[in-house]
């Protein structure tokens, strides 16, 4: 141990790390139960202050952590606060606590920062909405859940908060519950992520089973190494144990039957299924574009900056396990790479500004996943790059969404073809949106350039040339579709009267935009390699690697150039290309008919072949047997009702016969 840390004598923020999720929780209860019925305005103030307080504590924790473990040195995992929650049996308890390590500190900062800004923005954006107070209560609930997820020191706590963020996402997507499309979108999001979480749950149970079985043999070594950093004894479900080399060496040696696949790979692929559902990776991505039915600040907070990166965070948190499995990591890399390409291609054809941004989010999440997938424990640059991109992406994607929200607020439409010429009407939104567009496209010196550069570098350095090429192509596509919506929205003529009468957003809305724009510019200069790393080797941040920066910039320039060529002027060139592509364009525009495939599988196949027979069995056999017994009872009653003559004398005759029978029996028995 190079750094000596006295876990019992930490600073105030560390000892009270629970304050970070506690502020939004308390505020959620207060706002939802007491303040909301009294004052809408006050609800917003309380909710915002609570999240701001969390931000202050998170900053204090970050400062203290990096004071204890200076940047560039080793970054141990600390659990400065925990209490016992579930005791299954001696030696197997689950704690609730707060984990403090580079990635949780990073995520806490990102979540609280974006959440605070989105709260401020929402107090302007949602003005006049009848559900104003309810909205802030939900936002607080979400922030609490997300911080609880980030702070989870064991996989069980993470799973619980994982579901809680799913619930808050469900509530917020369906916020306009009178709109049928919002209701179905919220149900879709919930069902798809629940389906994915089924895999996660099985993965957790598999891990937990073997963790408990192997605990006795391997825990003392792990415990000796980590006990100084935790306030509670090591438990099988703790990430510290699950990612320890001792456990993984034992677990990784177990094969699943005679298939040649290790159980570790099976467990990690199942865990990744949950991560893929939350982060909307390829086959499970269908809920994210529809989730744009929620209010725009929600899209910015949940479906761009924070909740959807929970999957990336989970993979990063379990990274050593993925790395030991190898095969599971390859799955992560290729699913991520495919998603980034797939979503970027769809993004080039969509006309709803929020949907383009949603597909862009999918694509960027794929980028983060592929960066994790190409990393190894020996050369963990991709790990750092992924977290770096998560950080920068949170800034510029939240900015893009909030900017889009500001535009939608002004134009009252999501269609980019209803906008146009807005740069004169909304100068601040325009400039900040441009900054975010440049950042996501990867232009120097904005933040996206540095994080993308690092991802590309890590792919190339670890020999994934194919993924490198694919990522480069996606970078070009990203620049293309982002400039497409930017040009169509802000340049050209006013296409509708509403665009003509648009006006700049109120200060409550543009101040967060400006803050995020500043962050989007400077975030790239954070020496992330010194702050976030895994393993003993420190990933070096090379400054600018020209062998990668030049092709990346050329790709971005090509994308931008194509967009400029097609979408300035009359726009007829874009139509001509779309027409010449014909069926291919329709296929892409219809999102490769993935939704239809799902509908076919669920409605035609599952409903008809599985659900209907089961429903028939339930109605006919289960209900039927119950009905049959009831019917038999009544029918026999009907049959015997001839005995009920209503004559007391006939009843007493029966009674006398019975009594005599009893007497006879007694007589026979006793004598």
């Amino acid at each position, binding site marked *: 141990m190079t750094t000596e840390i006295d876990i019992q004598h930490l600073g105030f923020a560390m000892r009270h790390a629970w304050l970070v999720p506690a502020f939004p929780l308390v505020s959620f209860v207060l706002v939802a139960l007491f303040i909301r019925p009294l004052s809408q305005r006050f609800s917003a103030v309380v909710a915002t202050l609570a999240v701001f307080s969390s931000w202050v504590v998170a900053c204090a924790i970050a400062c203290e952590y990096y004071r204890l473990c200076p940047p560039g040195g080793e970054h141990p995992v600390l659990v400065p606060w925990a209490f016992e929650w579930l005791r299954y049996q001696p030696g197997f308890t689950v704690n609730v606590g707060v984990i403090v390590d580079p990635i949780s500190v990073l995520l806490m900062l990102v979540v609280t920062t974006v959440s605070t800004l989105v709260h401020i923005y929402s107090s302007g954006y949602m003005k006049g909405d009848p559900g104003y107070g309810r909205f802030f209560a939900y936002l607080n609930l979400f922030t609490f859940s997300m911080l609880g997820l980030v702070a989870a020191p064991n996989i069980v706590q993470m799973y619980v908060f994982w579901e809680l963020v799913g619930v808050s996402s469900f509530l917020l997507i369906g916020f306009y519950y009178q709109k049928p499309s919002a209701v179905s979108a919220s149900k879709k999001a919930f069902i798809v992520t629940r389906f994915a979480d089924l895999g996660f749950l099985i993965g957790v149970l598999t891990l937990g089973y073997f963790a408990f079985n192997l605990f006795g043999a391997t825990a003392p070594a792990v415990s000796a190494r980590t006990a100084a950093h935790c306030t509670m004894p090591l438990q099988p479900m703790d990430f510290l144990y699950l990612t320890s080399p001792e456990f993984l060496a034992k677990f990784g040696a177990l094969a699943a039957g005679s298939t040649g696949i290790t159980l570790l790979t099976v467990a990690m692929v199942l865990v990744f299924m949950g991560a893929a559902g939350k982060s909307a990776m390829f086959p499970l991505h269908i809920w994210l574009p529809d989730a744009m039915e929620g209010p725009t600040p929600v899209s910015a907070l949940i479906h761009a900056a924070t909740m959807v990166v929970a999957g990336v965070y989970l993979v990063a948190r379990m990274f050593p396990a993925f790395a030991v499995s190898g095969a599971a990591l390859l799955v992560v890399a290729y699913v991520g790479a495919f998603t980034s390409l797939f979503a970027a291609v769809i993004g080039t054809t969509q006309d709803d500004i929020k949907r383009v941004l949603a597909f862009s989010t999918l694509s960027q999440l794929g980028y983060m996943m592929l960066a994790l997938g190409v990393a190894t424990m020996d050369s963990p640059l991709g790990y750092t790059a992924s977290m770096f991109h998560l950080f920068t992406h949170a800034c510029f994607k939240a900015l893009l969404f909030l900017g889009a929200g500001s535009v939608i607020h002004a134009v009252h439409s999501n269609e980019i073809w209803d906008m146009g010429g807005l740069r004169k009407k909304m100068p601040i939104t325009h400039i900040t949106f441009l900054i975010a567009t440049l950042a996501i496209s990867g232009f120097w010196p904005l933040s996206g350039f540095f994080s993308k550069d690092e991802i590309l570098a890590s792919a190339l350095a670890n020999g994934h040339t194919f993924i490198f090429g694919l990522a480069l192509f996606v970078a070009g596509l990203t620049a293309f579709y982002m400039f497409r919506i930017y040009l169509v929205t802000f340049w050209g003529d006013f296409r509708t009267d509403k665009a003509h009468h648009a006006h700049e957003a109120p200060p409550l809305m543009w101040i967060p935009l400006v803050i995020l724009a500043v962050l989007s510019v400077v975030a790239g200069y954070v020496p992330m390699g010194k702050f976030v790393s895994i393993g003993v080797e420190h990933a070096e941040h090379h400054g600018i690697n020209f062998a990668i920066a030049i092709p990346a910039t050329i790709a971005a320039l090509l994308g931008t150039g194509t967009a400029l060529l097609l979408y300035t002027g009359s726009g007829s060139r874009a139509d001509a290309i779309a027409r010449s592509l014909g069926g291919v364009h329709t296929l892409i525009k219809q999102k490769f008919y993935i939704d239809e495939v799902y509908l076919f599988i669920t409605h035609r196949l599952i409903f008809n072949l599985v659900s209907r027979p089961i429903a028939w069995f339930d109605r006919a056999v289960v209900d039927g047997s119950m009905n049959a017994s009831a*019917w038999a009872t*009544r*029918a026999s009653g*009907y049959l015997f*009702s001839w005995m*009920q*003559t*209503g*004559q*007391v*004398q006939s009843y*007493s*005759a029966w009674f*006398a016969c019975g009594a005599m029978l009893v007497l006879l029996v007694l007589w026979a028995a006793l004598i």
Partner: protein
Amino acid sequence: MNPLIAQIAAHSPGLRDWLALTSVIFSIGLYGLLTRRNAVGILMAVELMLNSAAMNFVIFNRFCLPARMDGSVMAIFVIAVAAAEVVVGMAIFVALYRYRGTVDVNQMNTMQDPVISIEGPGDFNREVMKNINKQYKSRHDH
């Protein structure tokens, strides 16, 4: 002792004879209870059965515990209760006669449920209510 008295004493009926007598009385009462059509006749039959039971008390008192009076006390109780019962019963019969014009128990069959269809609980209840209402109405039409 007078030989006649002695002979009579020697042939005085024992427990078995007395119980045979009460059994016969009880059976007559039961037969009347089950076959009489006039309610007053039924009441009389019930009286017979009660009295046979009361006699059993006395008999067992006499043969099992001759030194005590428990059975006789019980018999007096039964007589008192029977008297009260007759009063109540006759009052009911008078009311019944006023209401229905007869005390023929064969016509006292309102306890009999009309035939009920067996479709479902909703129908069941509706049918029952309909029949009850019909009977109530027909009763008040008289």
